[in-house]
């Protein structure tokens, strides 16, 4: 069971057994395929679990039971939904731009996949460990907006177009806040490499060690990342009471499911990013100097820590969504440009000053 605490043991053994049997080029190819399949499975599982979780959480907030019919406590509900979506007729407007219309859901999915590749899930379990990992994730995850814009533009529906343009304005604005709030922690770690960021939190998570600026950065990150995933009070791009369904009004069947899946995947990605940067990623809860306590914490496998933290973040985002009313587009942009951005910039300065003076723990 050692591999559960350090996945590099597992990956090493796979690598060695493959190297014994194949030439190096083939080994790389097989490993890439293995990783790809693993991500696909993870993606599908995430979709299944998160959709179910969302429905159950919303049911909890709304004092009802949620899905209860398919499987025990409705656990197979998402599976049934997938089958329903697969069997649906793919419809398209007569005047829609066919190529772009079909392309849009894939762009969104691809951007989610690409971002997921760089996430550190547990010790030694990370497909790509760039030295600019953080930058890479924030770069590719914002590619998804192109998919949304294309979907809105090609649908030949004014509601879709309005939704897409709203989404464009929103994501471009909030990208700034996400980036800047992450930068606040990068000032502390001195590295953009995700594995280094995680290792640097071995003595305590940055949200506890980084004084108030880290807490402020975390709150801003929560708000901005919710906005970036088009969720919660910031779901203006979909805004079902205003724009029927926004950019995906005209989509049906599996293409709609892709948008749906991508939303949950994006939610997972930003939550994982937040967990990694602020809450120590897979690093157990450590307090510097308390050896016995740290050893007990180490007993819980890193992957459990990681998914526990991500679940916490995701639960927060769901909590927002089922509590708050939606903002208006001008209020949304005011919030970003007049409040979050200046606060964020000041926050980075304060943090830099703290680091310069060596005042952090």
């Amino acid at each position, binding site marked *: 069971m050692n591999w559960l605490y350090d996945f590099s043991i597992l990956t090493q053994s796979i690598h060695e057994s493959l190297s014994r049997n194949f030439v190096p080029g083939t080994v790389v190819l097989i490993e890439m395929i293995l990783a790809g399949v693993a991500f696909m499975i993870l993606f599908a599982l995430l979709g299944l679990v998160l959709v179910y979780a969302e429905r159950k959480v919303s049911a909890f907030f709304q004092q009802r039971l949620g899905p209860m019919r398919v499987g025990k406590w409705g656990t197979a509900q998402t599976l049934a939904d997938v089958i329903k979506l697969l069997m649906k007729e793919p419809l398209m407007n007569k005047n829609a731009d066919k190529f772009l219309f079909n392309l849009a859901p894939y762009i969104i999915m691809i951007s989610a996949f690409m971002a997921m590749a760089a996430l550190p899930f547990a010790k030694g379990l990370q497909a790509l460990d760039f030295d600019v990992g953080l930058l890479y994730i924030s770069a590719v995850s914002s590619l998804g907006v192109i998919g949304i814009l294309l979907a809105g533009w090609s649908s030949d529906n004014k509601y879709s177009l309005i939704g897409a343009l709203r989404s464009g304005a929103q994501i471009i604005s909030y990208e700034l806040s996400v980036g800047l709030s992450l930068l606040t922690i990068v000032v502390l770690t001195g590295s953009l490499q995700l594995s280094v960021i995680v290792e640097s939190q071995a003595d305590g998570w940055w949200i506890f060690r980084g004084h108030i600026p880290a807490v402020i950065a975390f709150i801003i990150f929560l708000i901005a990342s919710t906005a970036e995933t088009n969720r919660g009070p910031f779901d203006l791009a979909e805004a079902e009471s205003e*724009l029927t369904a926004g950019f995906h009004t005209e989509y049906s069947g599996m293409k709609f499911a892709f948008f749906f899946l991508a939303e949950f995947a994006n939610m997972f990605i930003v939550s994982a990013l937040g967990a990694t940067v602020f809450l120590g990623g897979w690093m157990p809860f450590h307090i510097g100097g308390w050896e016995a306590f740290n050893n007990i914490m180490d007993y819980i496998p890193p992957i459990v820590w990681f998914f526990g933290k991500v679940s916490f973040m995701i639960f927060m985002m769901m909590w927002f969504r089922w509590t708050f009313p*939606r903002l208006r587009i001008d209020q949304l942009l005011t919030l970003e440009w007049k409040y979050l951005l200046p606060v964020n910039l000041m926050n980075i300065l304060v943090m830099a000053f703290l680091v310069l003076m060596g005042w952090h723990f």
Partner: protein
Amino acid sequence: MEEIIHDQELESKEYFINMGPQHPSTHGVLRLVLSLDGEIIRKVEPHLGYIHRSIEKMCEHDSYQQIVHLTDRMDYLSCHINNEAVCLAVEQALEVEVPDRVKVIRTIIDELTRLSSHQLWWGVMGMDLGAITSFLYGFRDREMITDIFEETCGARLTMNYNIPGGLFFDIHPNFQKRTKDFITYFKKKLPEYDALLSDNVIFKQRMNGIGKLSKEDAISYGVTGPTGRASGFSCDVRKHHSYMAYDRVEFKEILDTEGDCFARYKCRIAEMWESMHIIEQLIDNIPEGDYKVPTKAVIKLPKGEWYQKVETARGEFGVYIISEGQRSPYRLKFRSPGFSNLSALDHMARGCKIADLVAIMSTLDLVIPDIDR
């Protein structure tokens, strides 16, 4: 800033959007054609008639007992009050004085109807602004009133309890107990409504100063009910032209001066408290007696005309009967509150954003069958 834009003459064209007849926030089959400049609304043009059933024409062929059953198909959320309006008009024409018991029961039922309508409005209002949870809360509490009604008259939506001359049946033995239970329950729950929406920063920002309607405009557009009262137009029929047992209970007419969405919201919440207050005063004092006065099988009103107005959850509902002495009216006109309230929509929504239009429509509390008739 505006001057700069003017100087460069950014070219922007108005475009149209068809909001409805199938749209999540038009609450039925209302169709609005919006002229938009970006997200800003230049003009709202309502297109009606998608659920027009020509109830007024049907009434010209129906007996007065039958007409009562058509009125709850108009404003299905204040069905008891609508029915009562016709009954009152007929009773007035026949010069029938209904027993005290009927008066008190009708008043209680009216206020319960108003409560349930406002609960639904509150839920839907939250949903329109994107807070879906409020919808479930509103319906959860409304269910209790619907249960009381089901026990009383057997129906849950298009309810018929009033007939010319009194009531169909006497109240159910459980009625008083269940109503009192509901009031105790809802007094605890109504502050939760405030906690969820009224105190929310986002919600206040969405509502404050949006969709302003001045008192003069409210009167000129004939906007009544909580919508009119939020603009300072004192138009509560229960106060001004008291009917049934309203003259013997103590209640406040909720008035506000702001005239924006938040004022309308506050008005309705305050009205829920007042309704509970009215029910509390009456529920223990239902006098003994008959629940109806016998009327002839075929009611023939004398020659003449009568106008009866009542206060529904949406505003002033009027029934105008012209009789030629036949078993059916010569002409019957329903003055529905939603119809007049809708006419002010264009005035209120100009210059707002699409999201504001949804908020304005929500606070107008439109029921489309009531508008189309």
